[in-house]
């Protein structure tokens, strides 16, 4: 892929990833964030974070299934945008929803499993965001860096679980995210098993 095409693609990711935030800001400006704006903004930020995280996890399956490898160059950008939205989601919870009522929030983190897993997912993403620079990849070395970044599978799973547990049981939307994640992780698992089998066969021969 040409350098120019890669830049165009990255600009497209920036535009797509920033659109939900722009819409919220526009809604704030126009006073059009539903009649329960804090709840609405929290939900939109959370869902966008989950979507971007799933998008970042969809690139490797594209390579595995169809041999298309160029989208992988967008992975870091999508992952970082997902992290940005997770942080905004968390900040809205602290500032707008609870207005720095640390005691109530602390109680919630301990008492409510869906909040526990949500905060855990956020914490797991911190080292990944911190080591996302090219310099950090070099410093850690490819093998260690890849191992560390497998934490994203745990974070995404906790994120999906966070949504399932917070929503009423009769709603299907959270299960759609969980199902997509299961497919994306399943494709990786299938590939890992296939590689393992391939590696073992020559040894047996």
């Amino acid at each position, binding site marked *: 892929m040409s350098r120019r095409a890669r830049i165009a693609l990255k600009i497209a990711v920036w535009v797509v990833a920033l659109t939900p935030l722009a819409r919220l800001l526009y809604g704030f400006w126009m006073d059009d964030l539903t*009649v329960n704006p804090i709840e609405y903004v929290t939900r939109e930020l959370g869902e966008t974070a989950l979507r971007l995280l799933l998008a970042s996890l969809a690139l490797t399956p594209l390579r595995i299934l169809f041999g298309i490898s160029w989208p992988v160059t967008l992975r870091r950008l999508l992952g970082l945008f997902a992290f940005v939205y997770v942080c905004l989601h968390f900040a809205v919870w602290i500032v707008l929803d*609870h*207005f720095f009522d640390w005691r109530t929030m602390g109680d*919630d983190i301990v008492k409510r499993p869906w909040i526990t897993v949500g905060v855990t997912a956020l914490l797991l993403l911190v080292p990944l965001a911190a080591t996302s620079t090219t310099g950090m990849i070099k410093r850690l070395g490819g093998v260690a860096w890849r191992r560390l970044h497998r934490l994203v599978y745990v974070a995404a799973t906790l994120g999906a679980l966070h949504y399932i*547990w917070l929503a*009423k049981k009769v709603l299907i939307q959270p299960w759609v995210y969980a199902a997509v994640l299961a497919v994306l992780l399943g494709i990786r698992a299938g590939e890992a098993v296939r590689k393992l089998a391939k590696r073992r066969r020559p040894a047996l021969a």
Partner: protein
Amino acid sequence: MTLRYSDVTPERLYLSRRELMVGAALAVIGLDAGREAAAAPPAGAPLKATPNAAYRVADAPTKIEAATTYNNFYEFGTNKEDPARLAGSLKPRPWHVQVDGLCAKPKTFDIEEILKLAPLEERIYALRCVEAWSMVIPWIGYPLAALLKQVEPRPGAKYVEFTTLKDPAQFPGQKPSVFGGSLDWPYTEGLRLDEALHPLTLLTVGMYGQVLPNQNGAPVRIVIPWKYGFKSAKSIVRIRLTDAEPKTAWNKAAPQEYGFYSNVNPTVDHPRWSQGTERRISEFRRRQTLMFNGYADQVASLYAGMDLTKQY
């Protein structure tokens, strides 16, 4: 403070009122469309009621626009915007309410009869949703007791069960889905008979000086201000007196989260969130939730001796 509906009535409602007038005009010259429009008073048609100063919370009422566009009414759909968007499919006329069970004079009431059974009052109640948000709403109706008296409950009657209309043609949310249903239709709710006869329990046919909008439970619903909102069944077609505690829709869906009583109680958490605070719609900071939603003086005695952490 005097509430002026002109301040808070959205243009949409004015427009539907205009349609009513056009419909009435057409009815005069004998056109079918006109007759149909005249048969069902659209949401927004004015409804006269006498304000009852004894039942009036001090806080300012929520804007009508908020109260008619932010609704939990899963018969239309699970999103809060669904009921307002899809409300047109519900036909609140003709409408009958069957009142039966353990009573001497069971009867099926026509909605027009219900509207005239007792003087309509306006009461301004606080509404606390189980999801920890709240509103203040001027309802129009009269005590449910007035209706129940008509059928003469038998001494064996201990509970009242409310049933909401089940008709997927009018309620798109009731259509079977490949992903499984949302709730078990029809929606049923229930009260102990003494709760049902309590003067606060309001048989409701209007709000904000107008006929009850479809998305708020037209043509007739119940309002029980000291309980979480879902207890207040909407679009009621049957009221049954019974000796056994009725099965209720949300209790069937998630028994550990929604009890039969579901009294507003800041000391009993929902398993997934604290009920200690609530967000009043249009306010920024959370406010403290009051025991029995602020109606403790009037209803606490109904639950004397009960462990409300167990009978939640």
